[in-house]
């Protein structure tokens, strides 16, 4: 297991290195796809850290991502603060937020947790817009920087790699082991001496930190921030779908879920500009029926076949 673990890590290292060259070989369309993919890779990997082992489907990504984008935007356009300062503050705010939410939602299980996190993004959006409307005022949230797509790509790549390494470390730690046990049977976990509350909150905070960081880094790409867009429930769902598609039991599941997803998505968008949404929907359905165990399942099946052949 350990040897295999190291092999995974080395493989990822090579991939990261290779990925770092993408902006040098292409800019324009493929780079913008790569940025999008990298954003989702970072988000889904962060999501998997918490939701993979616990099987808690968190829909809080939108909330954290939104906090990132939003804080950067208000800081920069309403208070003339530098981007980097805001990009550093935002994740910290989210960590505090995640700790609070974590503490409040510990008693919730299953679907109750899922929906709570879904509501969260809406609630924060509502609260933030209200505060801004009544106390801070805003003449539009502009995030005008000199970052190019390539810069954003590299930053996202760095985040994704960091999340992966952290995930890799957690996987090997007692915390990671505790999470697996919690995912199997939370009641038993407690009786084995695991402080389930602490473990869950801790990991939720890590997820929150990185999702927010991604939101902050991506903000300059949008240039103009509308709360409605950064606190988007759709984003939360997309992340879940991509992660599930990849498979959540392996840390690299999300990576191989995101890439085909984005490519299929793109092919459909480009081929059926008038009925994109319809065909995307049909495509999801096909995936559910024909890839019951996600892409990881498919890959593992192919590997297994290769071995036995």
């Amino acid at each position, binding site marked *: 297991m350990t040897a295999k673990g190291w092999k995974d890590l080395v493989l990822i290292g090579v991939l990261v290195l290779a990925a770092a060259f993408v902006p040098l070989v292409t800019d324009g369309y493929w780079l913008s796809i790569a940025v999008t993919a990298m954003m989702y890779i970072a988000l889904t990997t962060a999501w998997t850290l918490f939701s993979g082992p616990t099987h808690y489907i968190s829909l809080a990504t939108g909330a954290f991502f939104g906090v990132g984008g939003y804080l950067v935007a208000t800081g920069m356009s309403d208070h003339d603060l530098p981007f980097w300062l805001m990009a550093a503050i935002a994740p910290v705010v989210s960590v505090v937020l995640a700790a609070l939410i974590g503490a409040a939602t510990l008693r919730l299980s299953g679907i109750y947790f899922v929906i709570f996190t879904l509501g969260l993004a809406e609630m924060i959006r509502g609260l933030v*817009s209200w505060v801004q*409307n009544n106390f801070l005022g805003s003449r539009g949230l502009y995030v005008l920087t000199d970052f190019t797509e390539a810069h954003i790509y590299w930053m996202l790549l760095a985040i994704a790699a960091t999340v992966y390494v952290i995930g890799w470390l957690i996987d090997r730690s007692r915390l990671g082991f505790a999470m697996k046990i919690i995912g199997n049977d939370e009641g038993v976990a407690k009786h084995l001496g695991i402080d389930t509350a602490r473990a869950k909150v801790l990991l939720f905070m890590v997820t929150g930190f990185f999702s927010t960081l991604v939101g902050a880094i991506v903000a300059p790409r*949008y240039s103009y921030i509308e709360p409605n867009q950064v606190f988007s429930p759709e984003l939360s769902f997309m992340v879940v779908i991509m992660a599930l598609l990849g498979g959540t039991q392996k840390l690299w599941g999300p990576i191989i879920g995101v890439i085909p997803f984005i490519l299929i998505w793109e092919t459909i968008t480009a081929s059926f500009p008038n009925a*994109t949404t319809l065909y995307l929907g049909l495509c999801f359905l096909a995936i559910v029926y024909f890839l019951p165990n996600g892409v990881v399942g498919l890959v593992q099946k192919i590997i297994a076949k290769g071995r036995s052949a």
Partner: protein
Amino acid sequence: ADTIRIGTVAPKTGPLAGGALVSQWPNVDLWIQEVNERGGLKLKDGQKKIELVAYDDKTNPTEHIKAVQRLATQDKVDFIIAPYGTGFNIAAAPIYAKYDYPQIAVTSVTDQIGELTERYPSLFFTLGSTTAFVEGLRDVLVKLKDEGKINNKIAMVNVADAFGIELAEVARPTFEAAGFELVYDKSYPLGTPDLSPIVKGAKATDADSFVAWSYPPDTFGLTEQAVIEDLNVKVFYTAVATAFPAYGGKFGAQIENVLGAGGVNPDTPEMQAYRTKHEEVTGKAPDYWASANTYASLQILETAIEAVGEVNREAVTDYIKTHTFDTIMGPISFENQNSNRFWTVGQWQGGVFRGVVSSNIDGAVDVKLKDGWK
């Protein structure tokens, strides 16, 4: 090639789709059909028909950026029609700038016009700034107040999303400086299903004017609630979508003298011809605001391309910067990439939404007071 390829990205689904399908898409279709009927754009090496490459951005900035990149670097289209919505115009501006596409933004209202045009040398604005937008309404109110027709109290509400917050923030000092008192000033979240408490709240004040910086669904909702509550104000203003034909269709005669964002002068022959043609080609009437601007922006693009006579985007951009264009809205020219010919406030009068305040356009009609909701 014997065609000229023109790209466009705008929402067909998502929150902004409802608006884009009124103001943006039909005009793109109309324009292309007209140009192609005529035989195409006249370039130096002959006439070329337009081939449209269109993508749905699903009202999602990430999608939008990807799609514009695709137009620019994969499809390598010759020109791109500007996006729908403020956020999308700004988010896409770096790409237009990078590949030298002229971007004649229409549905984009911001106070950062100066900074943005400086950053992006091929970006043009046609709908005015947030401040101009608010000042248009202020002028109406001041005039009525000075004539003694309304009191100095305003009930103002806004949708708590980017656009609404921004307008309200500008409006507060602007109205106060003009001697008005905001006796009711509340926001409501996007997608509020029941607006009756707001209308009731406004009704409980003695304001003669009701101003709502609203988005389409709540523009309909607020008006319906006002009818039901019989909100008896002399000035009733709602923002986006007041100019939509569907607004007139829904409320009929009840909305006589309702004020709203935008407006047109429907009486010029050019505008009449445009409206007739629009109905003929797309099967529905254009709205009384951004539709005309959108169409005019396409006319500008068309004129500039034909004048340059070849697919030379930099030359076209330069041409737009330095010339005056004949459009259905009259002559338009850009100063520092910003056109100062636009309508800010309109009013439903006799089943037509007419411009009452404009910047440099003739044909404004006199404002009338709202007189009940029959």
